[in-house]
């Protein structure tokens, strides 16, 4: 006969309510961990998806995810020529916010290195990769776009041909993939009027100097599109990503590029480290502190509940001592109740959590490792929580059962 279970059955209502409460707390602890894992995973999903061995970015910047990095497109060819590099691609990434269906739509725009990369490597859940080098896009489902939906960005209209899941930028915005040309067109989209004004200004500047007057052709060129103008740079890319030959030492390739005064290079792991240290680290520590606090609060609440449950039982406990129940029976009664409460609360937290977390706006990634660790922590706090009650029960004298 298990006394702990008998007593719980006797005061079932209170026990169930308390267990639910503690369960919710544990769910929040679980969720906090999940939010952290989600942050890390979201931060790394793009870099991992791209699978670059080496990132080449603007000199002294921390790469396209941390800050603005602008590089000329010609850098792709320079990197491709470095010994050890099998292929180099342009990497275009930026965040835009536009109107769509009357609502603001924020998304990360990722340029794929068409035609080498059509998005086959993306976590597609519907549709297909890109099939033409213009006007198609693969959108993350978190953006709320449907397959076949048409979206006007800048001067062009793009059709959603594929959907991904959990492809989000480190800020949590869903990512849409375009060919890098399209991505740049979207980034550097300017209204017709501003282009006209810019050309007008160029023409005026050319007019002012001798060169413009003696070379009328220059004036013509100044009125044309920017990319035809030798003096003006083409639209910039964010980074160049390179894949290395298998077995090549990335640091060796890095060293050979260290002489280039216009770029900084990062290996894949270095890039991940930058990402985590930069945007995610503070959030991580914040969440960690919250988890510790919540765990302590759960332990304190459990201790108080177990303590009051024990106070209610002092008379029966004295009686048990009177009829000669050994100490381990009385300790077991309290400890088992604490453990039962802890484990049930954990189960409640798990069940509610797994149903609730998918509805959250950002990803809550609960890993088995984290679940196991939390189960261990729950065991420990259950034992700690019972100590106060056990201490009280030990001090009860058997003659308190009479009178």
């Amino acid at each position, binding site marked *: *006969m298990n006394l702990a279970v*008998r007593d719980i059955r*006797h005061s079932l209502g209170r026990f169930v309510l308390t267990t639910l409460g503690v369960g919710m707390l544990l769910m929040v602890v679980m969720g906090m961990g999940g939010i952290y894992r989600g942050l890390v995973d979201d931060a790394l999903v793009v870099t991992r998806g791209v699978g670059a061995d080496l990132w080449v970015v603007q000199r002294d910047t921390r790469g396209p995810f941390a800050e603005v990095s602008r590089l000329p497109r010609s850098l792709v060819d320079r990197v491709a020529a470095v010994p050890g590099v099998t292929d180099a691609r342009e990497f275009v990434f930026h965040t835009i916010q536009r109107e769509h269906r009357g609502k603001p739509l924020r998304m990360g725009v990722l340029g794929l290195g068409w035609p080498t990369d059509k998005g086959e490597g993306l976590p597609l859940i519907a549709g297909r990769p890109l099939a033409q080098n213009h006007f198609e896009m693969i959108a993350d489902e978190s953006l709320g776009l449907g397959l076949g939906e048409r979206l006007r960005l800048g001067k062009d209209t793009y059709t959603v041909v594929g959907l991904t899941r959990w492809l989000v930028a480190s800020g949590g915005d869903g990512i849409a993939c375009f060919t890098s040309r399209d991505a740049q067109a979207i980034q550097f989209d300017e209204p017709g009027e501003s282009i006209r004004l810019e050309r007008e200004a160029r023409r005026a500047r050319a007019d002012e100097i001798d060169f413009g007057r003696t070379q009328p052709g220059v004036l013509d060129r100044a009125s044309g599109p920017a990319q035809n103008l030798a003096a003006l740079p083409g639209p910039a890319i964010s980074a160049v990503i390179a894949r290395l030959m298998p077995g090549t030492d990335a640091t060796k390739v890095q060293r050979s590029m260290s002489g280039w005064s216009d770029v900084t290079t990062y290996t894949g792991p270095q890039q991940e480290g930058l990402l985590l240290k930069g945007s995610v680290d503070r959030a991580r520590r914040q969440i960690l502190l919250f988890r510790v606090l919540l765990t302590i609060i759960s332990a304190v609440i459990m201790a108080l509940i177990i303590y009051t449950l024990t106070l209610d039982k002092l008379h029966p406990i004295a009686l048990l*001592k009177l009829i*000669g129940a*050994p100490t381990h029976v009385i300790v077991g009664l309290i400890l088992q109740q604490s453990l039962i409460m802890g484990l049930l609360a954990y189960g409640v937290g798990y069940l509610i959590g797994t149903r609730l977390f998918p509805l959250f706006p950002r990803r809550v990634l609960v890993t088995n490792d984290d679940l196991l660790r939390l189960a261990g922590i729950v065991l420990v706090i259950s034992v700690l929580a019972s100590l106060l009650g056990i201490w009280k029960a030990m001090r009860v004298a058997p*003659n308190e059962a009479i009178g």
Partner: protein
Amino acid sequence: MTDPLALETSGLTKVYGHGHTEVVALRDASMRVRRGEVVALLGPSGAGKSTFLLCVGLINPPTRGTVTIGGQLMQDGPRSLGDLRRFRREHIGFVFQKSNLIPFLSAIENVQVVGELIGRPTSVARRRAKELLDALGVGKRAFNMPTQLSGGEQQRVTVARALANQPSLILADEPTAALDSVRGRQVMELFRDVAHRHGTCVIVVTHDHRALDVFDTIYEMEDGLLKPAASPVAEATVAHA
């Protein structure tokens, strides 16, 4: 070879409090009880009867004096010798003035728990609990919780519990206060039968003079002083093996 006495107390004295709150509840109480002897303890309220039972039951240590049970010196003044809780669990059965059932256990579980505490298998402890409840006429209420039982039913469950470990010493403090006289007498007779059949020594505090013929020996207590009663039922005293 003579049997050791079932119970022997000598010079048992209990003083509660100190200074001007000091109460001498027990003065030099000495009692010798043979195996199978059924003893009644009479006396007015506040005489120290309950105090005597608590000292003999190894629950409250006496201020002075010794308690020897079955030839084993258990209590020497406030000094306890041996594992009292274990001894209580294995050798003593208690019934107190107010019924003292564990509220979260049903009637049968309240009895069964005693059997389990002394290491009987659950099924054995349960069967024995059912037998005891039947014998006391509360078998039908075996699965009720204590709060669902009347005062008398609760008291009978308590008696069943006191018998569950087949004790060598039963201490009962007004066990029949909540019972009608027929039931009360039945309980007393049950104690006597148990005592005579198993050699159990029984001490019952009672105010019910109608059932005194059941007892082998009668003691009276007054103001902490214990003495054998010069009672008209003395002829009921019979020697038992």
